[in-house]
């Protein structure tokens, strides 16, 4: 099953290589890996989506924690989290199909960020399932290219879902 693991790491050169190298050396599968800065310039956050059974993911967590510049590791499995993916997708959109494509984009709360004679580029964010769903809906029109960030996530503080 999929686990979202969040690792707070020192913002130093070589840390990403170390983490990625550990995954490769120990034959763990990464679904996605996102690195970004945090509120503290000395720290970055890596959000890693890993597929594996509990034992494998437990090892992933421990091996990550063992890497010296990795400060803190959390596995979000079993707790409510907000998980988001951001995607840019370019879809074939000839004039006659455009209205239905636009309505599809609106349904998914996407945003048209570029448009030409034969295509639209859409920015869309949300849980992974929504992104996947949108891709499926776009397929019949013809997808030119897709760029995705991979998942970032944060545990929910409140019990109230804003969704």
């Amino acid at each position, binding site marked *: 099953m999929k686990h979202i693991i969040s690792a707070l*790491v*020192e913002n*130093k*050169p*070589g840390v990403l*290589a*170390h983490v990625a*190298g*550990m995954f490769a*050396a120990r034959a763990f599968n990464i679904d996605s890996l996102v690195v970004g800065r945090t509120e503290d310039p000395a720290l970055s956050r890596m959000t890693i989506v890993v597929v594996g059974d509990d*034992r494998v993911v*437990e*090892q992933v967590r*421990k*091996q990550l*924690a*063992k*890497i*010296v*510049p*990795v*400060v*803190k590791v959390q596995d979000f499995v079993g707790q409510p989290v907000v998980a988001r993916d951001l995607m840019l997708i370019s879809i074939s959109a000839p004039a006659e199909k455009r209205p239905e494509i636009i309505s599809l984009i609106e349904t998914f709360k996407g945003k048209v960020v570029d448009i030409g004679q034969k295509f639209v580029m859409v920015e869309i964010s949300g849980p992974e399932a929504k992104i996947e769903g949108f891709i499926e809906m776009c397929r019949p029109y013809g997808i030119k290219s897709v760029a995705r960030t991979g998942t970032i996530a944060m545990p929910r503080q409140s019990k109230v879902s804003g969704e």
Partner: protein
Amino acid sequence: MPKKRSSAKSAGKSITKTGAQIIVDTLIEQGVETMFGYPGGVVLPLFDKLYDAPIRFIVPRHEQGGCHMADGFARATGKVGVIVVTSGPGACNLVTGLATAMMDSVPIVALTGQVRTELIGNDAFQEADTTGITRPVTKYNSIVKDVKELARAIREAFHIASTGRPGPVLIDIPVDIQVAKCSDDDGTELKLPGYKIMRGGHARQISSAAAAINASERPVLYVGGGVISANASEELRALAEKAHIPVTMTLLGLGSYDQSKAESLDMLGMHGTAYANYAVQECDLLIAVGARFDDRVTGKVKTFAPHAKIVHIDIDPASISKNVHVDIPVVGDAKHILGELAKEVEYGERKAWFSRIAGWKKKHPLGYDRNSSVIKPQYVIEQVCEQTGGEAIITTGVGQNQMWAAQFYRFHRARQLISSGGLGTMGYGLPAAIGAQVGRPDATVIDIDGDHSFNMTLTELRTAVEYELPIKVCILNNGYMGMVRQWQELFYNKRYSKTYLANPEYAEVAEALGAAGIMVEKKADVPKAIRKMLAEKKPCVVDFRVEREENVWPMVPAGASISEMDGLDILESMA
């Protein structure tokens, strides 16, 4: 092993020093009296400062040898081994040595020179991506790009190498950082927010482990190198005696428990004793201490210790439940935890268990054909053991020589056996012996080696001569890469593919390199040759022409349970 960091050492506040001077001063501050290394282009500034530094410096013939020497030094003394080499090829030649130390958790600090900062990434002369290449084979590494961070980086290296689960740490230092001047370094504070060590051991977990021991009818202590790196032999002895528990050791654990004691089951695993393997397979409680359930120990994991509840004491949380499910994990320092555990355990007679073990010991002792007219390798080791009173420091090559050394030398104390267990690095024995002798000048240090292991690093014999290190080398010369040949015999229908190489006359090679050399062909000459070797003041190589196709027994075939040992019938027939 917390390192002392003198706070008064924030000197340099007003003094301006070069990076090279900072390196030397920080090494001295960290207590370094001996180091190993090989000069080169981008470490010239550092070597200039080492020219008159109060540090004993050993130059090997090859950087790999130097790294194994630092490793042997560290294992023999418990101190951090230090090696300094140049960039590119110098750094690349460390890789095998670092990987050896990494697998066996040996504290090493490696300093490598690097090309000038502005050239990095330009494929400069003797440039290699050292931190990239060595990242998987070090506990930690980093490159220093600001001279102000240099002292701190080195202090952190010593701290990381020697604490927690020890391991090698590499610091890459560009040549311009070595010549840069610095009057105000970063201070003595370590900045390692991600480096935490759990020393204590959870009190409730310790109590559960104690309760499990007290309730157990058939317990076994299974101890590894972690007990030795934690200097916990005394605590292990106290626990085993107080609770009355038999002890089996991994290759790296040998020496942590006195093998002359009745509770010793000696080594377990692929070439372990039958009584150790049977005991593990029948025990109801397995107490693993500083061991990692390596495949050479467990055999088929699914059937390993099938009736046992498992307690695992280890300082590395990632070792726990990695290969085998653990019922009672205790994370922390073995010395502390074994001490606490001993307070809570009670003596258990376990008469039936010990008599069952005694039965196995009687039925399946280790052995070989003592009546053979040719020199048996096991006989050589027994003679070495006898003549050194079991008190020598033994290093080994890898393969049959290593297994026989583990089986037939009887170890009493920690740090007596120095062997590449995890990585299985052929060529380790000679340089490791040199490092051990440097660290323990008064000890008798003997490398029990195979001919082809010895071939790999024999150039270092000259290093031993140069520094007047009276190491001994016993080559169990069978002409083959013996262990590989054994597998070819057993599993590849005796097709000895590429495992035979013609050897030189080692005694003559030794003499030519300035050491003493002895060749022994007759069994009757073995004791005399060993006496001569031990009396020799120079480094001494003895070339024992042993039985060519002797096998190591017992043997757990790959993928079998450890109670399914081959060769027990052979041992029985020779008893």
